[in-house]
Each structure stands twice: as structure tokens, then as C-alpha cells.
């Protein structure tokens, strides 16, 4: 070994490291070694290692008959195209050749990958392969090409429209193959969402299209059906007959095993049902499929189903009136399902199932999970307020819970529910005699301000029913300053009310004390003001005015079940099955419509047009340089041979560069940006930034 070599190997350091191993694997003369190396490269890429340095070496393996190897190289290309846009162009020829391969799988693979390489330059080479594959004999290729149009639009809307691909896509809606139809529709939807050009009419749903879609609905895959149903949902049927026809075709889909097909069908039927005369009969058909959404074995799907059921119930309250039992909580349900089931159960409560329902609610109130217990007790209150027939039973139930189960949580929640019930049925003697003693026995246990507020209101409203009223009022007045200001206001009102209703002056001491405390020692302005108003009212006005102002009854509570406002409800009904239906918020509140728009770049045909040959030359030059560097580094035992390797490597690469003759003319005319820019650092696009941020968010999530 010469001295020179020794020095070189010393400078270079040890020949080790993963990248080096992979590199030598990629250029190995053995097929299986190369393939193995590619697999490992992809593996490294997947776990987040940067293997973009290997780009030229991976690219050398693109020309292969091994389908799996081809897929892997394509995968690598998709991932690193952005960091090596100039080298991507070298793969173009292989792509174009592959789109003419006799095997449809390869044709589809090539066009799919081309669309995923998000490099501006790619746009120019896509015209011919894309129009060829869109007209392919094989539906598998056509359906892949249909989606590629949307990918192209994403990359460059201008070119996509100019080459007429959007129109091609519209024609494909009438394709004989259902899968092609579905993908074309999906692709058009994507384009419509991305489109920012008001003059471009992306999708017009005509009666002919609808007719066609109804024909192929039954032949589609489950996902295709969803697409078709979504389109039917957008269509405004001009006549009742047509709406009826659509419904008639959609109803069989309710029997589909995929819950999303079922829910989308329900949505479509509800969309058109208002127009047809037989509305009640059709609504009746929906109840079993709705129930099936809940009996599916997947909790996540059940949850989405129930969120939607809640919306539908509000619009059509009768639709599930007989199905209460389905919503009974199962012990094994996850908590979020249990809570959602309770929401639906209180909405389904009616006179005939009230007894059954209350029995169930009692079971849930005896459970261990605090959130569930709280919600169950609230539900008992809601049911009692909703249905007057079962109010006594509900009140008894709540009282039993307080006595038997006990505990802060149960007592506080039950007291809130009980006072709410009294606000719904004011002045009912039997109820008051049931409720007041129970609450007055547990005054010490009240801790939440809601429960306390209820109790204080009650003592002011029905003082006669309380035993030992005097000491209770004393306790409130003595502790006045320790309560939060909201409760101080309540105490103030109640003490004044007690004073007025008892007529004699037995409570005047307390009154005096509370007014003084409120005006002199209380820091809250509202409390002070209120105290002053009462004081003045009591000292100056007529008793009539006092009665009117102070003893005024609170408005009656009609329900404690939350409902949507009509505008929101209408928008949610139209957005069934979507994210909006789960959040219970209109889409406009959480979706940014512009996030999806693409700027219509007007500079598709750049002024500076490059020649493909120049480009090739530059690319070649770079690869030669790379190869030389490699050789310098490799200067080892085999060093002498390696220097010879450079030209042979070039020969190999020449195959890649040869452009098919017929393409050449069009390609040279195509625009490319300034070639010199090519070798500069890839310009970071705003899109990548946001994507990165998103992944971070995602990580935070888990």
C-alpha cells in the first residue's frame, strides 16, 4: 500500500456508517442486495431519518421489472422529490414508459406516483400520460387517472384547466364503470373545493347525471356509494316525482352493512323527504336503520351515530319513540357513550316509557363513575320537568337517592334537580311537602354554589314549610360575608322575602343585620346596590309596591334539555354525518374555507423556457460530480477500478435520459423555470411549514 493511499484512507476516516452501507447496497451488482438496500432506505425514511443524500443512488434502481422494487423507488421519489426537484426530472422517462406498460397495474402505479410528485416541473410532462391513461381501456387505470386530475389541479390549476382535464373528468361521470364514476365525482369535489376561479364551473349536477348515478348506485363499492349518495344529497329535485324516485332508490341502501353508507343514506332521504307526499311512511322506515347505528359493535361509530341521532330527533321527535331500550347503558360501554346515551334517553322520554326510564336512571345514579352519576341525576330532573305524570315518582326517586346513596356529589346534584322541579311546578303543595324536609335535613352537606343557590331560593320562596326556620336564616346571615357574591345576592333577596311574607317583625333583626353587612362590609358593588334598593323600598314605598317588586315570581322553567336554535338545527340537518354533526356546531365555525383554496397561478407558461437537453446535461454533470466525489472517498484498495467506473455509470444513466422521439417536440416547448434556480436550495413553500406545524400538534395530542 503506497503512502498516498494510506494518507487518503486516514483522511477519509473509517468506511462505516449506515449511509455508507446503504449506498454500497444500492449500487451492488446483485439484484437482491440492491432490493434489500432499497427496503432499508425506505425503513430509515419511515422512522424519520434523512436519507435524501442517497437520492441519485436510489434513482438508479428505477428501471426494473420487479414490481415491488418499483413501488419502493416510487415511494422514495414521492418523499424526496421536493428536496431534489432537478433529479426528479430524470425519472420522467421511466414514468412515461411505465404509463404505456402492458400491465395495467404498472400503468396505474406510474400515473398515481406522477401525480404525487409535487414538483412544479412535473406538470409539464404530465399532459400526455394523463390524457392517455384517462382514456385507458382498463377501468383500474382510468379510476386512478381520474384522481390524478385533482392532484394536477392542486399543483397547477391553470394548466389543468387549459389542457381540458376538468372537462375530461366531467365526461368520465358517464363512464360505464361505477368505480371510475365515483372517483371522477370525488376528484371533481376536490377540484371544486380548491378552485378559486369564479368563472370555472366545476360540477353541474343535471337530471341526466342523477339518473346515471341512480343506475350505478347498486353496483358501487361501499365507498363509491357514499360518494354517489353525497352527490344525490346536493341535488335539488325539481319535482316531487323525482324526489320520490331518488328516495325509492336510496331506501334499499339502508340495509347496507357499512354504517357510513346507512347514515349517508338517511341524510339523503331526509334531504328529499319534505317534497314527497308519503313523508310519515318514509320517516318510519328510518327508525330501524338509526337504531342499527347504535347497535354496531364499534364504540366510535356508535358515538358518531348518536350525535347524529340527537340532531335528527330534534327535527323529527317521533322517529324513535318506541326505541328507548336500545339506548340503555351497557356496563362495558366507554364513558363517552354512556353520557351520550343519557342525552338521547331524556329526549325520548314520553308518558308511556317514563316509569321504565326512571328505573334505569336510578341504576345509573347508583353507579361508581361520578360524571355518570351526576348526569343521571340531572336526567331524572329533566324527565320530571318534561313529563308532569311522573313528577312525584321522580321526586321520590331523588329523595331515596339522597337518603340511601348519600355523599356530597349525589346530595348536591339531587338538590339542584329538586329545586328545578319546583320551579317547573310552582306552588304544588304535595311536591313542596315532599321536597322541603329532605333538603332541610341536608343543609350541612350542600357545598356547590348551584345547590346552595337552590336552597336559598327555596327558603325564601316557601319559608312556611321549613322547620327551625329561625336558626337556618341565622346561619345564612351569620356566614353572609363568607359566601361568594352571587349567593350573597340570593341570601339578601330571600331574607327580605321571608320578612315580607311573615308580616310580624320576628325576622327584623336578621334583616337589619344582613342589610348592614351588605352595605357596609361587602366589597361587591352589585350586592351593595341591591341592598340599598331593598332598604329604600322597604322604608319608603307602599306595601303594594314592595309585594310587586320583591315577591315577584320567577318565570317557570319549561325544560332543562338543551336544544339547538332553529338556524343551527337547519344547518346541522344538512350536515349530518359530517364533522359538524359531531361537534354540534355549524361547519362555518370551525372550518376555514380558504385553507383549501389554491391560488390560481397565472404564470404557468413561464417566459424563460428551458431546453430539456440543457437540463439533462446539467443533471448529468451533477451526477458525474457526485460519482467523482464518491470515487475520491472510495480511494481504497479498489480505488483504481473505481475511477474507471464513472463512465460506465454514465452509460447506465444514459438510458434514463433518452426521451422518446414523439415527446421531444412538445416537451422542449414546455416551460421550465430558470434552470439556474434548479440547483439552488429548494424553496420552502408555505404548505410545508403548516404541515410541519400540524404534525407537532398531533404529537402534542397524544
Amino acid at each position: 500500500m503506497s503512502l498516498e493511499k494510506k494518507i487518503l484512507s486516514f483522511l477519509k476516516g473509517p468506511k462505516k456508517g449506515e449511509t455508507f452501507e446503504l449506498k454500497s447496497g444500492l449500487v451492488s451488482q446483485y439484484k437482491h442486495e440492491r432490493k434489500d438496500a432499497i427496503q432499508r432506505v425506505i425503513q430509515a425514511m419511515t422512522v424519520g431519518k434523512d436519507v435524501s443524500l442517497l437520492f441519485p443512488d436510489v434513482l438508479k434502481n428505477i428501471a426494473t421489472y420487479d414490481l415491488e422494487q418499483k413501488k419502493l423507488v416510487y415511494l422514495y421519489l414521492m418523499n424526496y422529490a421536493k428536496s431534489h426537484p432537478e433529479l426528479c426530472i430524470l425519472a420522467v422517462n421511466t414514468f412515461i414508459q411505465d404509463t404505456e406498460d402492458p400491465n395495467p397495474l404498472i400503468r396505474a402505479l406510474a400515473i398515481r406516483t406522477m401525480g404525487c410528485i409535487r414538483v412544479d416541473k412535473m406538470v409539464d410532462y404530465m399532459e400526455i400520460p394523463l390524457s392517455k391513461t384517462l382514456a385507458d381501456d382498463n377501468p383500474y387505470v382510468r379510476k386512478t387517472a381520474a384522481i390524478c386530475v385533482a392532484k394536477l389541479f392542486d399543483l397547477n390549476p391553470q394548466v389543468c384547466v387549459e389542457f381540458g382535464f376538468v372537462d375530461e373528468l366531467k365526461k368520465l361521470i358517464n363512464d360505464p364503470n361505477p368505480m371510475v364514476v365515483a372517483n371522477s365525482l370525488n376528484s371533481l369535489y376536490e377540484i371544486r373545493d380548491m378552485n378559486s376561479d369564479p368563472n370555472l364551473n366545476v360540477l353541474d349536477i343535471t337530471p341526466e347525471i342523477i339518473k346515471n348515478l341512480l343506475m350505478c348506485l347498486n353496483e358501487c363499492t361501499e365507498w363509491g356509494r357514499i360518494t354517489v349518495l353525497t352527490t344525490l344529497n346536493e341535488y335539488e329535485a325539481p319535482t316531487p316525482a323525482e324526489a320520490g324516485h331518488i328516495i325509492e332508490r336510496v331506501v334499499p341502501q339502508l340495509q347496507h352493512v357499512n354504517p357510513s353508507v346507512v347514515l349517508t343514506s338517511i341524510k339523503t332521504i331526509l334531504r328529499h323527504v319534505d317534497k314527497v307526499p308519503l313523508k310519515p311512511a318514509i320517516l318510519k322506515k328510518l327508525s330501524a336503520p338509526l337504531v342499527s347505528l347504535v347497535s354496531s359493535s364499534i364504540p366510535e361509530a356508535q358515538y358518531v351515530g348518536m350525535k347524529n341521532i340527537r340532531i335528527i330527533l330534534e327535527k323529527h321527535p317521533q322517529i324513535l319513540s318506541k326505541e328507548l331500550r336500545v339506548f340503555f347503558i351497557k356496563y362495558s360501554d366507554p364513558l363517552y357513550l354512556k353520557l351520550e346515551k343519557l342525552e338521547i334517553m331524556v329526549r325520548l322520554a314520553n308518558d308511556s316509557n317514563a316509569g321504565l326510564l326512571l328505573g334505569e336512571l336510578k341504576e345509573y345514579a347508583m353507579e361508581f363513575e361520578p360524571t355518570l352519576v351526576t348526569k343521571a341525576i340531572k336526567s331524572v330532573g329533566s324527565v320530571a320537568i318534561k313529563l308532569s305524570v311522573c313528577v312525584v315518582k321522580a321526586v321520590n326517586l331523588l329523595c331515596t337517592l339522597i337518603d340511601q346513596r348519600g355523599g356530597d356529589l349525589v346530595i348536591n346534584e339531587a338538590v339542584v334537580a329538586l329545586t328545578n322541579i319546583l320551579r317547573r311546578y310552582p306552588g304544588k303543595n304535595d311536591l313542596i311537602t315532599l321536597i322541603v324536609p329532605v333538603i332541610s335535613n341536608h343543609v350541612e352537606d350542600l357545598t356547590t354554589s348551584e345547590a346552595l343557590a337552590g336552597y336559598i331560593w327555596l327558603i325564601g320562596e316557601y319559608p312556611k314549610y321549613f322547620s327551625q326556620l329561625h336558626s337556618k336564616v341565622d346561619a345564612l346571615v351569620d356566614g353572609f360575608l363568607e359566601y361568594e357574591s352571587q349567593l350573597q345576592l340570593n341570601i339578601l333577596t330571600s331574607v327580605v322575602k321571608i320578612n315580607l311574607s311573615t308580616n310580624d317583625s320576628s325576622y327584623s333583626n336578621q334583616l337589619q343585620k344582613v342589610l348592614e353587612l351588605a352595605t357596609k362590609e361587602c366589597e361587591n358593588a352589585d350586592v351593595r346596590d341591591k341592598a340599598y334598593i331593598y332598604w329604600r323600598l322597604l322604608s319608603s314605598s307602599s306595601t303594594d309596591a314592595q309585594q310587586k317588586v320583591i315577591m315577584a315570581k320567577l318565570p317557570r322553567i319549561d325544560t332543562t334539555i338543551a336544544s339547538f336554535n332553529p338556524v343551527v338545527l337547519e344547518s346541522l340537518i344538512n350536515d349530518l354525518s359530517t364533522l359538524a354533526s359531531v361537534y354540534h356546531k355549524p361547519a362555518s365555525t370551525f372550518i376555514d374555507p380558504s385553507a383549501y383554496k389554491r391560488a390560481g397561478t397565472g404564470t404557468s407558461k413561464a417566459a424563460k423556457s428551458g431546453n430539456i437537453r440543457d437540463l439533462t446535461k446539467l443533471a448529468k454533470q451533477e451526477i458525474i460530480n457526485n460519482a467523482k466525489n464518491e470515487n475520491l472517498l472510495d480511494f481504497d484498495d479498489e480505488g483504481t477500478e473505481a475511477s474507471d467506473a464513472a463512465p460506465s455509470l454514465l452509460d447506465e444513466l444514459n438510458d434514463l435520459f433518452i426521451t422518446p422521439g414523439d415527446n421531444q417536440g412538445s416537451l422542449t416547448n414546455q416551460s421550465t423555470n430558470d434552470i439556474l434556480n434548479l440547483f439552488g436550495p429548494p424553496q420552502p413553500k408555505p404548505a410545508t411549514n403548516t404541515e410541519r406545524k400540524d404534525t407537532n400538534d398531533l404529537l402534542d395530542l397524544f
Partner: protein
Amino acid sequence: MAYKGNGINYVYINHNNLYVCALTRKNENVMALVVFLLKLIEVLTLYFKSLEEESIRDNFVIIYELLDEVMDYGIPQTTDTKILKEYITQDYYRLIRNTPLRVVQPPNAVTNAVSWRKEGIFYKKNEAFLDVVESINMLINAQGQVLNSEILGEIKIKSHLSGMPDLRLGLNDKGIFSADSSSESTNSKGIEMEDIKFHQCVRLSKFENERIITFIPPDGEFTLMSYRLSLAQFLMKPLILITCKTKVHKHSRIEIMCSARAQIKKKSTANNVEIVIPIPEDADTPKFVPEYGTVKWYPEKSCIIWKLRTFPGGKQFHMRAELGLPAVVDPEELATMRRPIKAKFSIPYFTTSGIQVRYLRINEPKLQYQSYPWVRYITQSGDDYTVRTS
């Protein structure tokens, strides 16, 4: 399962400690997303036996391939495992080395109207096996009253049939589906089947219009249809009646007296009956006296399981158990005692709803072969056959 942040919505499901997540900026069809994620899990599970972190690491190549086929640009394509298996084969490498001339092609079925069956299937003996499986979910209170019950029925088929056979399934009168628009179904004796769901091979419009079940089956095993019967009036008494009395002697021991009774026909037998009785977490030193069968203590699940291999109809058995309790008792502990008792069982040759297969006509227009349909019935417990305690 849905979360939003920064204008992006994350829809995810949890599977074996993995989060499978979909992201969207649009107001997407979230039900479709959830179901797609589930199907994805199903597909991956089929390929790797079980889907967990390890199997993802080991199989990234095939996962990339599968993801490529099941969706494109975020649009679901095909999630039918039978068809995917046709052209995403686990062992590519060997396939290509041994038969370099054979090129993998996308099966026609991917885009055909019959997307679930390939052409040219051949069996020497043409057979179809039908399993009618009814799973019973029941909620019983401590007094033995049924609060809620439902039958989840499935008709499963294992098809070993050549060519492109067209099948027609006939069910017994009782199982005749009431045309749901007519409201007089209550007075007729027929069962009102609720939400019948069919495999995508069944011609839905034909069923809707003529109430006939016709289909070209996929090859191998699949679930042809499922149905649900929620029949409080039909299933008034529990199939296996379990009564259980628990006596807690605070600070010393707990006594459990349990009896089970098979309330089914004398001729029938329930197999592999398991009764899972919850016990306090800190119980110890169990003593069991079963009249029949075996009892085991599972401290990690805080329960005891009473197993009876066979349980003839009409019989009743008792079991007594005694476990020690620690001297110090956590007051919260007693609340957790409210977990329900669960039961598992299976009863062959019997359907609770009385549904029966009348005929299965198999017709292959080109091959015209002799074929043999086989039918089996079984009733079993669903995943929620529970008895409330206290």
C-alpha cells in the same frame, strides 16, 4: 375520537394502544372516516394476524403498498380484504424469483360490478356451509326480570363453489320479513326483524321490492346478513337464569351463593357455560363448593368464574363461595362491588328467534354442477349478557 386544533380536525380510533388517525381541513363525512379507519385496521389485521406497533415496524413495505391501494389522494378505494389479497401478496419476493414470467395484474374484480369475487374459481366438490348464529344480549335485574333483551343474528356462509354461482336463500315463514310499511305486523305471528343488514353481494333493490335474497357469494367465509330482534315480549325469561346472593361480613369475609338454571328445552344443552362473578379487589383465600363444574379465582380481574362444560335444559345447579376480606375496608370499595355478573354460553342446534333456512338454491348457469348446502344453528351469549347485582 374527534379533536380539532389549528384548523385541522383529527379523527382517530384507538386499537391495541395504537392511534389510527385521519386528518382533514374540510367538513368531511366523519362516519365514513371512522368506518374507513376501522376497515383499515381490519385489513392490516388480516395481513399481520395482529396489528400492533411491532407488526407495523416489521411490515412497513406491505403497509405502504396496502395504503396505496385502499386509498388514493385521501379517497377510499377498495377495502375488500379478499380482493386485496389477490394482488398485494405478502411474499412478493419469492413469487417473482420463482416465476419471473408471471406478472401481477390488478384483478378485474377491483373495478367490476362484482367486486368481491374473481373469475375462474374451481372446486372439485361444490359445497356451501351456512351457519345461523344468534347472539343474545340480555340485561337482567337482581330479581331475575329481563329489563332489555335483543337477539343479534348472523347468517354466515362458507362458500366452496365453482364459477360464478347465483344463490337464492329462502327462510321459514316465521322469518318472513314483514313489509315494514304495513303497520299490522303486531297482530300477525311473524317476527318483526329489525334492521336487517346485508353483505354487499346481496341485491338490495331485489330484496326491497320482492323480499327475495339473491346474491353471487364471495369465495370463502363471509357474513351474508345480520339482523336484530329486540323482543321484550318474545324473550321474557332468561335462557340461563342466574341468582346470586352476596353476604358481606365486614372486615372478615364475603359469602356468595349462586344458582344457575338452564331455562331451555329439555332436549337442548348449553355448552361451555361461564358465569363471571365480581368480587372485591382485596379479597383473598377463596373457598369454593360447586355442586357441578369448576370455580376459579382470577385476582387480576377481581372475579371468580364458574365453568360448566355442559348444562342440560331444565337443570339447576348451585355454587357456594367464600373469600376472606382484609380487616381494613376502603369505603369506596363497596361501590365498585356493583359490577354486574356476566355469563357466556352456547346452545347448538337451536335458534331463539325460530328462524330457519328453508332452502338455498345454487345455480351456476355455465357449469351446472351438483352442489351441497349444509346448515347449522347455534345460539350463544352476546358480549352483554349481564345480571345486575343488588
